[in-house]
């Protein structure tokens, strides 16, 4: 996979968002380059989630512009973002625990045999086979695609979510606090996964308030505080101490 142009894959210009009187994003501008692993850090309420939600289509900005692969975009919902190739993996919001792995893999994008008004019979054999393949591709070994996601550990769930994003050929993967509540070993596995995205030509936006994790797997760090970007550096040009002072 190669990026069509060498400019930024996502360009954010002067983005504003208000929540009933609170100015959550105060004119944020940010370029995300293709094939880069961008770490987005900041304290609670710094505006990270708002920015992420806008990029993933779950919220709309009040002002400002976003261009994606050079074209201006206006996502009406998460669907639009997913179809464009931006996939978001939330802390725990991206899987339904009471459903099987195969069904979770394809929520909202089920392969159907003939449909009427978008409703049709799912191709369950295809769903099983493709989820087995997708999970194996991220080097995860699960018992069966019919196991319930609720039976998986936190790390395995993130693995399935990442496998899902890769299966649908996303170009940008936004990972919102993917390492929260994970055991040490599983955290390492998720971080390893983020590192390997680069080889696959996928741009990663890694949101976390754990600096160590960000330093471990990102090329560039953007820090936010009080709705603004307060720092934007290459990882090798900065240090933990410097980031802590600006937050």
């Amino acid at each position: 996979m190669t990026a069509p142009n060498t400019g930024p894959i996502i360009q954010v210009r002067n983005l504003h968002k208000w929540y009933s009187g609170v100015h959550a994003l105060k004119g944020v501008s940010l370029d995300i380059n293709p094939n880069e692993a961008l770490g987005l850090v900041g304290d609670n309420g710094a505006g990270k989630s708002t920015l992420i939600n806008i990029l993933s289509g779950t919220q709309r900005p009040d002002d400002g512009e976003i261009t994606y692969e050079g074209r201006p975009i206006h996502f009406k919902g998460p669907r639009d973002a997913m179809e464009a190739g931006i996939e978001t993996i939330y802390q725990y919001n991206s899987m339904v625990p009471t459903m099987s792995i195969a069904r979770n893999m394809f929520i909202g994008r089920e392969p159907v045999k003939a449909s009427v008004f978008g409703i049709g019979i799912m191709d369950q054999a295809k769903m099983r086979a493709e989820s087995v393949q997708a999970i194996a591709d991220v080097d995860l070994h699960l018992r069966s695609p019919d196991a319930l996601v609720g039976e998986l550990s936190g790390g395995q769930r993130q693995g399935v979510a990442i496998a899902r994003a890769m299966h649908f050929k996303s170009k940008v993967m936004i990972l919102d606090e993917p390492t929260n509540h994970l055991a040490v070993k599983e955290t390492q596995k998720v971080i390893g996964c983020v590192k390997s995205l680069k080889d696959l030509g996928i741009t990663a936006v890694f949101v976390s308030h754990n600096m160590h994790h960000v330093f471990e797997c990102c090329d560039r760090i953007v820090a936010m505080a009080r709705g603004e970007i307060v720092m934007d550096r290459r990882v090798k040009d900065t240090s933990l101490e410097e980031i802590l002072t600006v937050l």
Partner: protein
Amino acid sequence: MKRLLKIYMEKPELAAIVFLVVLTMVFHVRSNAVFLNLQNLQGMLGLLPEVALVAVGVTLLMICGEFDLSVGSVFALTPMVMGVMLANGWPFAMAFPAGLIAALVAGFINGALTVRFSIPSFITTLGMLFVARSLTVVISGGFPPVIPAGAMPRGMFTAFIGPGDLFRMSFIWFVLIAVLIGLMLSRTNFGNWVRATGGFLPAAQSMGIPTARVKIACFMICSVLAGFAGTLQVMRLGAPLPSIGEGLELQAVAAAVIGGTALTGGIGTILGGIVGAILIRVIDNGLVLSRVDANWFKMALGALTVFAVIMNTWLRAKAKRMKVETQK
């Protein structure tokens, strides 16, 4: 062996089926072999579709994470709309759809209010319970309208059929609809969305599922099934009483829950709801035939409901702890 056990424990409707078989045998013996004779089966199978259709709708809606207390009232309103129109000389081909449209509208209002104002469906549908019942009484004037003889094509809906007239046509309708809804839930992408919406709403939303529309659709399906069930009952009885279906909402919830549907949504099957409804009918009928005071029925129903939920919760927790391969 362990694998089979796990599959079994993950399917609470199987436990309900086993219980149903045992109970049937007990009642058959206790009633001196009256329980499974032709006349009694005929009576039970004639009543079953009406309750079971309501249970199917309520089960679907509960899997979607919502609740409908108004099914009993819609069960009365739908045939009343039809009955009043028939009594005023409208043809069946107009009156019957008009009744079902009334049910669909009630379901739409339930769903739209619940979703739009994000309030518990318990409240919206409790409101609809009173509103629809009141409308039923108002449009009937308090008396059942006199439906002209032959105005309803009862041959299509309630006539006896099958060997020894064992079934009524309503049973065929019920089986058709139940299979259709069951397949829709388990095989179609819409079914996947219903389960995701009820199972974990934020995930469904973040994956771009139109959860509001899915919920409203489920409310409408639930409502129209209740309305159709009420229409079947009226065709069987011949006249729409304004009071039919009272207390049915809670029986339907009990049926769904006994069949393994979780109140929290996401878990359950249509088959489970049907088995639950059959169990309720079997207990009702079996107690009478065993010469037990009929007033014990609600006691048995209540105890069974609570027992079933405790059992299902326990089985699920147990099954979750068994790390066994369950690939089919």
